[in-house]
């Protein structure tokens, strides 16, 4: 039994019409002119069982907000359907419906009612909510005197205590300090263990990885990837790269976003790992010195770019990040239509496991990337089983006497 099921979901908007016509609202009609229609979301499918979680990531304008609105039943889908089984709560705009002149206490009851809680339920959970929000004696102060952090904390606390079967979370953890964010994450974990299905919409890749098992990547209204959260983040990076490449090839038809993030003036063509003997490998013995070759083509002249290398565990945790800038290495200018190998020489003191290597080339002022591969290749490290973990710190084990008493 699914707690949420989304099938063939699609939303069409008519663009160009200056006023949303009341007539269209009363008698909906299909727009005749194909050029004026825009599918904000098309063919989106997913289903979650109780306790499952799904992250939805994608650049601005990819259709995330439209999906959110359809899930929240605020706007009807043009195609397909959303089926919800159970109580639904949305953490969308924290404190939606808060009135600035009312006190925290009054707003808890108001916001709770908006989220579908009965007064008796709010009474029951009131102390928990206040404790979670960490508002203390400010609960009887008008919320207009709250800091934005307090405002968000109270908003989150209410929504998280609805005890929903389905929880929709959107980009809300950007506010609040680190400690509060951690508290929110553990509350989400707690709810999931109690069987709440969670949909988490965010730009923050680390947050998605922290909260979700699976994730979906949206791009131009379509779901371009649906799989594990770790892989989704790589897919998202690829999507941006593809978009950048497309806009580089046809400069008159840019889609804005990709242009800003990635210009593709330099393109990473291949990434390989070689031993000192020059042999190309994918399996490396722990402690071995290797060279990572990044074969790069410069389409345009590029001045003093910044080269960067990232090594991650397969679940996305960064093990090692370095850049030419951090190493205070002055790079040269690269002429247009040239090809170079950028070489990272390193001793791989990682312990046994699989690791992802990511590389990027960024502008000298870090205003944008030229090219970026979140996961250029995956390597296998093997060791002699003298240690476990991620990194080989070559611990030496020894002992020395402090006092010795020998029994006769």
């Amino acid at each position, binding site marked *: 039994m699914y707690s949420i099921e989304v099938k063939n979901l699609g939303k069409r*908007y008519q663009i160009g019409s200056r*006023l*949303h*016509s*009341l007539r*269209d*609202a*009363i008698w909906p009609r299909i727009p005749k002119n194909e050029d004026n229609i825009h599918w904000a979301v098309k063919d989106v499918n997913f289903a979650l069982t109780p306790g499952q979680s799904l992250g939805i990531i994608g650049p601005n304008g990819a259709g995330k907000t439209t999906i959110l*609105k359809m899930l*929240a*039943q*605020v*706007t*009807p889908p043009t195609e397909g359907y959303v089926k919800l089984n159970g109580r639904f709560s*949305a953490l*969308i*705009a924290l404190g*939606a*419906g808060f*009135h600035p*002149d*009312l006190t925290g206490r*009054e707003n808890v*009851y*108001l916001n*709770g*009612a*908006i*989220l*579908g809680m*009965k*007064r008796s339920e709010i009474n029951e959970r009131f102390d928990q909510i206040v404790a979670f929000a960490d508002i203390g004696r400010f609960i009887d102060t*008008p919320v207009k005197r709250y800091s934005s952090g307090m405002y968000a904390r109270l908003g989150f606390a209410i929504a998280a205590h609805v005890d929903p079967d389905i929880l929709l979370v959107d980009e809300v953890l950007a506010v609040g300090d680190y400690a509060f964010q951690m508290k929110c994450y553990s509350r989400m974990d707690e709810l999931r263990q109690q069987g709440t299905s969670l949909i988490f919409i965010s730009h923050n890749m680390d947050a998605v990885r922290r909260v979700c098992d699976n994730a979906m990547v949206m791009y131009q209204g379509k779901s371009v990837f649906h799989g594990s959260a770790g892989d989704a983040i790589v897919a998202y990076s690829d999507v941006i790269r593809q978009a950048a490449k497309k806009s580089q090839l046809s400069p008159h038809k840019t889609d804005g976003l990709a242009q800003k993030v990635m210009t593709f003036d330099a393109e990473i063509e291949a990434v390989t790992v070689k031993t000192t003997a020059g042999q190309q490998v994918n399996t490396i013995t722990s402690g071995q010195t290797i060279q990572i070759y990044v074969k790069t083509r410069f389409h345009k002249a590029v001045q003093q770019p910044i080269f960067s290398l990232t090594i991650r565990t397969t679940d996305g945790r960064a093990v090692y990040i370095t850049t030419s800038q951090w190493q205070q290495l002055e790079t040269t200018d690269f002429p247009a239509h040239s090809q170079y190998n950028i070489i990272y020489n390193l001793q791989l003191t990682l312990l046994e496991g699989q690791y992802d290597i990511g590389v990027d080339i960024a502008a000298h002022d870090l205003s944008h990337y030229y090219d970026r591969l979140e996961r250029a290749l995956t390597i296998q490290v093997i060791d002699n089983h003298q240690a476990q973990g991620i990194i080989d710190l070559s611990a030496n084990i020894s002992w020395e006497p402090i006092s010795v008493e020998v029994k006769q």
Partner: protein
Amino acid sequence: MYYHLQQLYQHRELLGAWTMRTIRARYKQSMVGGLWAILQPTANAIIFTIIFTQLVPINTEPIPYIVFSYTALIPWTLLATGITDMSNTLVENMGLITKIYFPREVLLMAQLLARLVDFAIATSILLVLIIIYRQQIDFDPIVFLAFPLILLIQLALMLGLGLIISSINVFYRDVKHLVTLGLQIWLYLSPIIYPVTRIPEQYHTLYFLNPMAGILEAYRAVWLYGQWPDSSSLLLSATISFFLLIFGYFFFKRVEINFADVV
């Protein structure tokens, strides 16, 4: 239809909470609070009294003009403020409408209910006025049973209009200016500052097509003359009002799902 009413019933606690919010928010950070409820009809009554007793006398004997006009200005103020509040409430709460689902008419009904508080305060002043001017009329207390019925008809009329106007206002924001203008004209088309007897007999059928005419006359009959309201004019008002309410509700529910896409 049944489904919509069921949804509305399920959100009754929200209606209560939103009504309380509206009332509390209105009087927080204001010096005289609930006094504003009587200020507007009282000020109007005083102005009209000066004009229509000193400058252009209107005979309302045996009722003093101020009591005569105030009796109608209370329900009129309820109508005018209620409709203005309802017209704007959807647009003001767009942030909520684009994010969370609930039956949107809850917002309108809360505005309406919140104005009833003002109405109750102002009506209590009317009672004081009636005592001051010692209306020596044979009161049959049973006629006061008609009062909640008249109020109900007025609320139906207001909600019906509110449902239509507020949803059009989402699509075309200039509607709210039209509302102000319309209410101004409507004031003079209703028996507020003058008695119905001033309208020539042959125009009465036309005149009472304005549902407020029957409603205001009914209030006066109850409050000032201690009589049962004229049933034919009140029945006409009730028919028009409930027709507007039903039509308004269907209209509202038809366009409601598009609100979030307009913004």
